[in-house]
């Protein structure tokens, strides 16, 4: 209660300020714009309500892209991290590239993915999965290597095979690392999904935002953005909840 009260107050104050500035026309005149281009929070709220079924339809499309793409990226990231742990050669050959690839704005290859995977959900999944893959793979690979060498020695004298060492010690040790990679991934996944839709889509919140922006439906742009923010925060919260339930020893 005490913890979320201050940020909630700040948020409420910002929204209140925005409401006053927008409804009085002050914000529009400062920006040199027509009034209807600068919606107030109240107008956004009513747009949310009026367009609820349209927003829900498109949110469902985007949510699927985010969740499925994230799960693909998660599976691939964890799998690849395990491969790296088991093959020193693969690790030496690809790990530096993986770390470097995190600096590459993967989103910019989204247009190419549309060319390759077509117009449907495919390219969006590919963009989201790709964005999610790298942080998860790098963090998990680091985690698998972070086992204390004394623990490894102890396990070896207790007759642990390579596989037992991996599953009994290295995998649990890497879990908190995998989760912090997943947190980065889940924060970027909605951006990736929207970007994928901007390149080419006939539905989804990103598609809706692009269309409404062109038609100067600013209130609905903000309404769609609000829905997207709620989705992103909910997914982040869900992941944090899962981490607390799974990594109980920290």
């Amino acid at each position: 209660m005490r913890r979320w009260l201050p940020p909630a107050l700040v948020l409420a104050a910002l929204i209140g300020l925005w409401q006053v500035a927008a409804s009085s026309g002050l914000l529009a005149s400062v920006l040199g714009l027509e009034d209807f281009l600068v919606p107030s929070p109240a107008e956004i709220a009513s747009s949310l309500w009026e367009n609820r079924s349209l927003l829900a339809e498109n949110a469902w499309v985007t949510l699927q892209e985010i969740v499925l793409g994230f799960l693909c990226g998660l599976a691939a990231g964890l799998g690849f991290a395990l491969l790296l742990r088991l093959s020193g050669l693969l690790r030496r050959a690809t790990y530096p590239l993986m770390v470097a690839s995190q600096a590459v704005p993967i989103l910019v290859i989204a247009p190419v993915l549309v060319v390759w995977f077509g117009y449907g959900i495919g390219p969006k999944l590919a963009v989201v999965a790709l964005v999610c893959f790298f942080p998860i793979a790098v963090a998990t690979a680091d985690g698998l290597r972070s086992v204390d060498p004394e623990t490894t020695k102890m396990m070896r004298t207790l007759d642990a095979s390579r596989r037992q060492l991996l599953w009994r010690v290295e995998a649990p040790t890497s879990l908190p690392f995998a989760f912090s990679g997943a947190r980065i991934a889940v924060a970027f996944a909605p951006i990736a999904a929207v970007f994928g839709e901007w390149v080419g889509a006939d539905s989804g919140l990103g598609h809706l935002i692009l269309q409404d922006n062109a038609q100067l439906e600013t209130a609905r742009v903000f309404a769609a953005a609000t829905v997207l923010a709620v989705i992103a925060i909910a997914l982040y919260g869900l992941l944090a909840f899962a981490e607390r339930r799974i990594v109980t020893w920290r």
Partner: protein
Amino acid sequence: MRQDTKMPAEAKEFATAGASPANAAAPGAAVSIRGLGHSYDELAAIEGLDLEVPARGVLGLVGPSGCGKSTLLELVSGLQEPSAGEVEVGGALDPAERLARCAFMPQRDMLLPWLAAVDNAALALRNRGVRRGPARKEVERLFERFGLAGFERSRPAELSGGMRQRVAFLRTLVSGKPVLALDEPFASLDAITRAEMQGWLAGALAADPRTVILVTHDVEEALYLSDRVAVLSARPGRVVEELSAPAPRAADRDAAVTDPTFVAVRERAMEALHRGSR
């Protein structure tokens, strides 16, 4: 506080525990170290070591920091291969066979934080393919004798330092291996708990004797727990002096360590330690 120092009186109970399948297969194995030397890059950690430990005997190793004591344990256990000389454990020179005969207890307890105490103690059984249920049952029977009753399902974070160390030792013992390599097992404990744990370990070894190589920086601990104590020099580690302990693992620890003979041997060991540190 538990009277761990009284454990030797419970030797009979331990003997029953020793008959369990977990440690039934603990035949004696002598350790023989001949002309052992080991270097990391150009740096010689140990040099020309000759040491003998009879089956079910306890050898204490004391020496200044960085004299290669921990390296020696790894060489004996087959975790590393020496650059010179040889180690024989229960008649085997091959590192894989040495590994099969030795259980290593690291300096810190290295309990896996996500496993309950009982599952940590049962690791060796689980690695050997015993299912979780039977492995737990097997190990839980030993918890009472180890002063851990009621803490079977506790996570390591919920245990005191002394209890964690006992779980770690139980884990080592349950492996059923004839040779135990203990690397400063009580270094992380406070003085009172350490004294208690020494008495407790003495009782545990009386009931279930194994060949033990005990590395410690505590001369008193080495002399109380071991049959013989080798004092090593600063790097490269060499044997400065080998001493016989006057009353190995005597039932009354406090009386044993204040006995004039014990004190005299301790003085000699300290003197050798100083000589080797120069």
